[in-house]
């Protein structure tokens, strides 16, 4: 093996002063930077970046009082100012309530009266005349908050079921889509194709289609989210199976274990931490997206949000946005703890 090798290595290798150690940047780096700069400049023009910067700085300046008024401020201002105070009470017209008993009000509720001016056409003069009516409301001080919390629970349920369905379907998809475990190239291609397709479909559009099929409500919501979740989990689960350490798998094959048993005993323990991380990410994403797909009528808090937004009830919108934010924040904390516990 070593017979033909020269004993004296120095004869062939140059001295250190003749070695070459290149600088990390050269003309190619400069060229690449130039090309990127030209492309960004071209695209920036199309995307109206200068206008965006101009309007934003105007809005910021007017906020801190250095400029009179801004276009963005005018547009957003009305809504933003009406987000506060958040509406947490609910009021119902007593005249519209059936079997209302004035002597035994529901817990925490009170009666408020308000004078409402309405214009009615006088049939004699054919003129609109103001009429003042006294309307009584049953006010529940936390009524709307409870309503939003109920919707938020429903949203969370949508997210949970979407995640459960996505995980259950992703596991077989991932096994078929892992090069080292798929039965043949046809199943591999089919699985990878399905997963890519599911990932490329936007949830909002899928939810719109599913609402046509399943009607308004939660079913369309969690199905749409789970389809997208499969597209994500199917890809990442499969890639982790492919990348897992082969040594324990070989040991199990030597014992005569079938593919499924090798996956369970030799691969699953290795990939479990990243699977937990991916799944928690999908759950987190599903909670946020469940709020969005409600916009097309797929249940949850988004449906409520859309209704309040369309009727300009921005105080209610504020409460909903706060609820979504707090839920995502809480989920973040919980999933961080769960992850540390399962992975650590």
């Amino acid at each position, binding site marked *: *093996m070593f017979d033909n090798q020269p004993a004296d290595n120095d004869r062939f290798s140059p001295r250190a002063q003749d070695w070459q150690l290149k600088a990390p940047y050269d003309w190619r780096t400069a060229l690449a930077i130039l090309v990127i700069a030209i492309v960004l400049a071209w695209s920036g023009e199309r995307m109206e970046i200068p206008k965006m910067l101009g309007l934003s700085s105007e809005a910021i300046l007017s906020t801190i009082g250095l400029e009179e008024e801004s276009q963005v401020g005018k547009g957003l201002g009305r809504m933003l100012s009406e987000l506060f105070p958040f509406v947490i009470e609910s009021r119902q017209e007593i005249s519209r309530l059936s079997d209302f008993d004035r002597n035994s009000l529901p817990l925490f509720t009170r009666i408020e009266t308000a004078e409402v001016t309405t214009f009615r056409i006088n049939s004699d003069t054919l003129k609109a005349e103001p009429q003042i009516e006294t309307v009584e409301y049953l006010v529940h001080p936390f009524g709307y908050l409870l309503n939003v919390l109920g919707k938020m629970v429903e949203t969370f349920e949508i997210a949970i079921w979407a995640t459960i369905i996505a995980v259950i379907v992703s596991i077989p998809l991932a096994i078929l889509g892992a090069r080292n475990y798929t039965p043949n190239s046809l199943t591999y291609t089919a699985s990878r194709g399905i997963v890519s397709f599911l990932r490329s479909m936007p949830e909002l559009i899928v939810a719109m289609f599913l609402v046509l099929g399943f009607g308004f409500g939660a079913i369309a919501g969690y199905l749409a989210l789970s389809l997208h979740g499969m597209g994500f989990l199917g890809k990442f689960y499969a890639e982790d199976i492919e990348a897992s350490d082969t040594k324990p798998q070989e040991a*199990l094959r030597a014992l005569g274990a079938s593919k499924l048993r090798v996956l369970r005993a030799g691969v699953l*323990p290795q990939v479990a931490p990243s699977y937990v991380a991916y799944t928690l990410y999908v759950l987190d994403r599903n909670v946020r997206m469940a709020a969005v797909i409600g916009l097309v009528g797929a249940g949850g808090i988004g449906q409520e949000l859309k209704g309040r937004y369309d009727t300009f009830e921005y105080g209610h919108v504020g409460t909903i946005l706060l609820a979504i934010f707090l839920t995502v924040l809480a989920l973040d904390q919980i999933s961080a703890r769960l992850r540390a516990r399962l992975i650590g």
Partner: protein
Amino acid sequence: MPTAAQIQSHSTSYAESTHLVFNNICKKFPDGASALEGVSATINKGEFCVILGQSGSGKSTLLRAINGLTVLSSGELILDSAPLTPSSLRGIRRRVAMVHQHFNLVERASVATNVLIGAVAEVSMWRAMLGWYPTHLRNRACQVIERVGLDESHLKRRASTLSGGQQQRVGIARALILSPEIILADEPVASLDPAISREILNLIRTAAREQNATVLCSLHQIDLAREYADRIIGLRKGRIIFDGPAANFDAKAEAALYGKNHIPTSTNETAKPEHV
């Protein structure tokens, strides 16, 4: 643990019955490289047989042919007078266990789990999927873990937290859980230091003796082979060039096996390599 002398006297008492026969086996890889070129040998029951040879001489291929990790190109392998075929492989694998060079443990799993998965092919599918092994296997796992010199405190520890020697002990326990007839050890001590290597080889040998298991062990340390083997098989370029009792493996055999660049073991510690 029995002393070396006890083992020596003990070994002669084994009945010399044929356990495993290699009948002119060949292995050619798809790229044309030939790993085994007509290997024939008869291994007796309970024998501790060390296979020596340079890297690429076919040691691993020979071992992996026995549990079907390598499919032979030609020739016959006979275990207890039944030829080994793809259809009989399933039954045979249960009786053949393997100890690996890199331990091949599931590093994130506990010691107990790593030992129990030695029986993963034997339990029903739902038990395998749940990782819920029956009581008798869990008891057996504890026994073999104790046998390899670990204790209860190790059961729950992750394999990755153990030292190399301890990991190989777990690997041996995994091999022992189904009380195999044959233990294949593929360079079991190649990644361990000399003192630990002796402990591990001693463990494999005594544990195998206890259950009258045959051991085929590939090594590249000649001194260890001389120390532990009942019999040495020397492979060079896929052919057997030495086969006999360890006592007969002398300097001449060693030179024939490793070629002219070989550094004799007797001067291993002090010799300067001729070519670098």
